[in-house]
């Protein structure tokens, strides 16, 4: 999921103008004095600017386009073009041999039809839905509970919170390997703990049994997702005016009532954001599952991203792989479009 992480910063940081500017402003002093030193060189001062030809604002605009050009060209070449090319591939019969210089006949929607007729595809869709729903449910509730705990002031609060975040930043391949080891039947630490608290039969080969492999993968993914959920929800909790709680307490509301009637409703917008980001990122998880089970046993954990990988990179059925990939893209795209619209709506309201 690491590959998917940039968005976590990106999308949330989009609204961060106020916060970031605060911290950057604080740090601006040493930097600005350095600049003053640079200006002291003042070599440009005597040079006459070519200002006669264009107005300063037009010049600036031209500079703006020039500045953005390299980045935009790069993204067009390596991001936009490949995605569009994927659309082309999805309506052509592209095979490995043709990749080496053959022709790829146009087949219309055949690849989509093949994919939609494939029972394995629908199996993968179901697994993705269960994987996503299970991950979201647990990482959100556990994250919320931890956020409520960490919202209280207590010694070492910040340190413990930072430690939790380490789990989230580990490369997914490392987390996957870790959980393979933790869930191992014989020497796995979790099974050792289970054996310690109960009968030996509690120990289980979680990832080898098709009945529990998906649960094992969800377990690991929840572990990866909890810190992120906690952090965002914690920020949300801090925005709630403590006076509301105090007033309610004076009026005789108990802790549960204050939680139910103050915290929950005020946390709704943040919760929607967190769940939606979680949906986008969980739906496309690949590496964690790939490393833990490789999609097995017997396709028990072959979620949609692994299905696409198999069709494309294992069977080299490029056309069908491209079609399945575009179908996989649909969910995050719809969710993302809805989210951005929501953000914009808020922005206009503010």
């Amino acid at each position, binding site marked *: 999921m690491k590959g998917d992480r940039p968005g976590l910063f990106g999308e949330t940081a989009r609204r961060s103008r106020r916060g970031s500017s605060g911290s*950057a402003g604080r740090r601006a002093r040493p930097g600005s004095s350095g600049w003053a030193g640079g200006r002291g060189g003042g070599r440009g001062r005597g*040079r006459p600017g070519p200002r006669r030809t264009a107005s300063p604002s037009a010049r600036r605009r031209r500079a703006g386009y020039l500045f953005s050009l390299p980045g935009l060209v790069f993204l067009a070449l390596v991001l936009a073009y490949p995605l569009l090319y994927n659309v082309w591939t999805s309506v052509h019969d592209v095979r490995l041999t043709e990749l080496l210089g053959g022709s790829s006949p146009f087949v219309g929607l055949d690849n989509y039809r093949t994919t939609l007729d494939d029972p394995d595809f629908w199996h993968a869709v179901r697994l993705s839905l269960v994987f996503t729903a299970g991950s979201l449910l647990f990482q959100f509730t556990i994250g919320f509970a931890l956020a409520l705990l960490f919202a209280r002031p207590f010694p070492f609060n910040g340190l413990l919170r930072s430690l939790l975040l380490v789990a989230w930043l580990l490369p997914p391949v490392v987390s996957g390997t870790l959980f393979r080891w933790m869930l191992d039947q014989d020497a796995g630490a979790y099974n050792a703990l289970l054996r310690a608290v109960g009968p030996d039969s509690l120990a289980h080969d979680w990832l080898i049994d098709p009945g529990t492999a998906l649960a094992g993968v969800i377990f690991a993914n929840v572990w990866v997702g909890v810190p992120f959920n906690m952090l965002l929800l914690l920020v949300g909790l801090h925005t709630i005016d403590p006076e509301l709680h105090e007033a309610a307490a004076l009026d005789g509301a108990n802790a549960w009532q204050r939680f139910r009637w103050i915290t929950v409703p005020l946390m709704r917008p943040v919760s929607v954001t967190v769940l939606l980001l979680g949906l986008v990122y969980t739906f496309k998880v690949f590496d964690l599952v790939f490393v833990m089970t490789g999609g097995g046993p017997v396709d028990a954990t072959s979620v949609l991203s692994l299905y696409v990988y198999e069709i494309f990179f294992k069977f080299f059925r490029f056309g069908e792989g491209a079609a399945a990939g575009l179908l996989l893209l649909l969910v995050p795209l719809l969710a993302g479009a809805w989210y951005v619209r929501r953000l914009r709506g808020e922005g206009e309201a503010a």
Partner: protein
Amino acid sequence: MRPRRPWLFTTGATLLTAAFLLPVYWMVNTSLTRPDRILAETPRWIPAPPTTENYTTALSDDALLRALLNSVVISCGVVALTLLLGVPLAYALARIRMRGSGTMVFALLIAQLPPTIVLAAPLFILERRAGIDDTYLGLIAADTTLTLPFAVIVLRPVLRSVPRELEEAALVDGCGPVGVLLRVVLPIMAPGLVAVAGLSFLIAWGEFVFGLTLVSEPDVQPVTVLLNAFVGTHGTAWGALMATATVISIPVVCVFAAFQRFIVGGLAAGTVKG
């Protein structure tokens, strides 16, 4: 509201954090345990006495060293490319009134949505055609699609916080737009730049899907792909495996320790909104 017994909360939070971090502890613990004790019936919670045997085994493998080197090269390349392309783009989007800049920002947000595997598929074909599959360049370019949109979106507000007066003063003094960016803006935003560089490094360091699909030469493969290959082939050599995993995690922990204020602050500021 001030809880009456703050240390009680500290104790509870410590226990929960410890339980949560058990896998990480177990990784280090296993990596320091003698190989013949790792698969013992009752696992030992403390490696007594600790041994570096697993690390010696893991690091004596040329393939691992090569893969680590590859990952360093790739990650540094991604950081360089991200800053080189991202800073001017972010600056233009933050400061200069241009037609279509709203659309560009929107596109950058959308750019973060596609699952990596969906992008890896066409890139596999296209990079092969272009002859840059199995090269650092091909992998660096692919990884940068993950870091660039995010870097621009994070840097834009940082750039906006640079006092406009400073820039205008420099323009009046005869500095060109490039001079303003290099001499005035960059020094001020250095902390933000360093943090974005650190995060881009982390993303590239942990990247797996592109490494798996776009590269088959061991000479170019990143260490994440190697670790996965180890899990498959040396499935039971858990000691060396956990030593390798620990080695891969060390840069992550270091970078996080260095930039955690920014990471937490940036994320925090992101969701807070009046």
